[in-house]
């Protein structure tokens, strides 16, 4: 079936098997490999994208459900703005090791900071509870969130 949707501001279409997830549609049909395929059951958050502005696991969205809707992936983030500060903070704080979970974390952290510019540690932990990292032990990821949040408060993007 043909699915027509808006991805990162551009009109796209893909001819997919009807049971295809949005994640597979993005990766295997549109060549957007930033959203990672790890667990395919919504546990790890590596495939996090925005669907009509809401943070979701793209592996749990049927491709056809995204038809006519707007999807924003990690590739579509505007690095001149908030997401750039998040990306830079991840690099500086050493919150990246193997890097596999990083796109999902950058998406989830950008979502958090756009809703809550000064999150408490408890809020950060809750907001990132759906993203797994098996390398860092999370301490440096929390550092990165605080670093990005502080910078964005000092000089709002």
């Amino acid at each position, binding site marked *: 079936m043909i699915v027509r949707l808006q991805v990162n501001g551009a009109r796209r279409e893909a001819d997919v098997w*009807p049971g295809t997830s949005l994640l597979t549609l993005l990766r295997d049909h549109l060549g957007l490999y930033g959203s990672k395929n790890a667990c395919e059951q919504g546990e790890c958050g590596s495939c996090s994208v925005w669907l009509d502005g809401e*943070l*979701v696991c793209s592996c*749990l969205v*049927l491709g056809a459900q995204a038809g006519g809707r707007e999807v924003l992936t990690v590739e579509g983030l505007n690095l001149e703005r908030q997401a750039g500060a998040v990306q830079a903070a991840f690099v500086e704080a050493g919150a990246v090791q193997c890097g596999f979970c990083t796109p999902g974390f950058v998406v989830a952290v950008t979502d958090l900071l756009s809703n809550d510019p000064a999150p408490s540690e408890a809020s950060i932990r809750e907001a990132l*509870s759906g993203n797994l990292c098996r390398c860092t032990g999370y301490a440096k990821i929390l550092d990165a969130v605080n670093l990005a949040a502080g910078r964005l408060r000092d000089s709002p993007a």
Partner: protein
Amino acid sequence: MDVLLPRTLEEALEMKAAHPQTVPLAGGTDLMVDLNFGRLRPPSILDVSRLPELRVLSREDGHCFLGAGVPYSRITAELGEFRPLAQASRSVGSPQIRNRGTVGGNLGTASPAGDILPVLAVYQAEVDLVRPGDTRALAWDRFLLGPKRTAIAPDELIAGVRWKVFRGTGSFSKIGTRNAMVIAVASLCLVLDEDARQVRAALGSCGPTILRAAAAEDYLTAELRRAGSWDDPACRLGQPVIDAFAERVADAARPIDDVRGTAAYRRHGLRVLARRALAWALEDRRQGR
């Protein structure tokens, strides 16, 4: 396989009646996993995520109606006054999951571990089932028949749930290996219904379906009366009463050993949850919350 994409509930019902084998899909937090792993290959999928009729959240005549398509994130944000419901919704998965998972999905999947189901049992909620030209309301315990079994007919869809609003404090709590992203090993919803002066308690993940702990409810109701606590929330209950209540909650369980925990651990967990939930409720009443 085919995907059916109705725009209205009426269209969806016609499609369901014409294709009884079609599987309704909303937030995908259960079904997409089965699709991704090749465990589910239905002849067709009915996308119910675009139906405005299912996203209704309304209050009238002392009742609350929650549409089947309302996601947990919206319950947490908009129904904070129903504290156990908001707590159960917030305990579901992660932010990503709560943005997608729906009330209708919890009901339709009918897992004994469905987080909001013990709350709906305590609220004595009715499930609205619709088919073309007809609606019926089934009490929660006539809808949930067993593990992943419900009374829904092949031509019906879940429209939502409705319950009578009552005064009273309470909580939902659950046991798992993490605070987030966890399927409950045991869960408990406890509410002190101040209107009827009746304790209400329901258990999740501790039997083939959600269970009300009737003997525990009646015992505590009577002990609160004996202590004068329904009239004066400052009246205290002795520790033996609290322990005896917890024991009766654990006795109501019909748990099994499975990958998430043993039956004995589930009973132990319920005793702990019951003591905590009762302590919170009594303290809330003393504080007038």
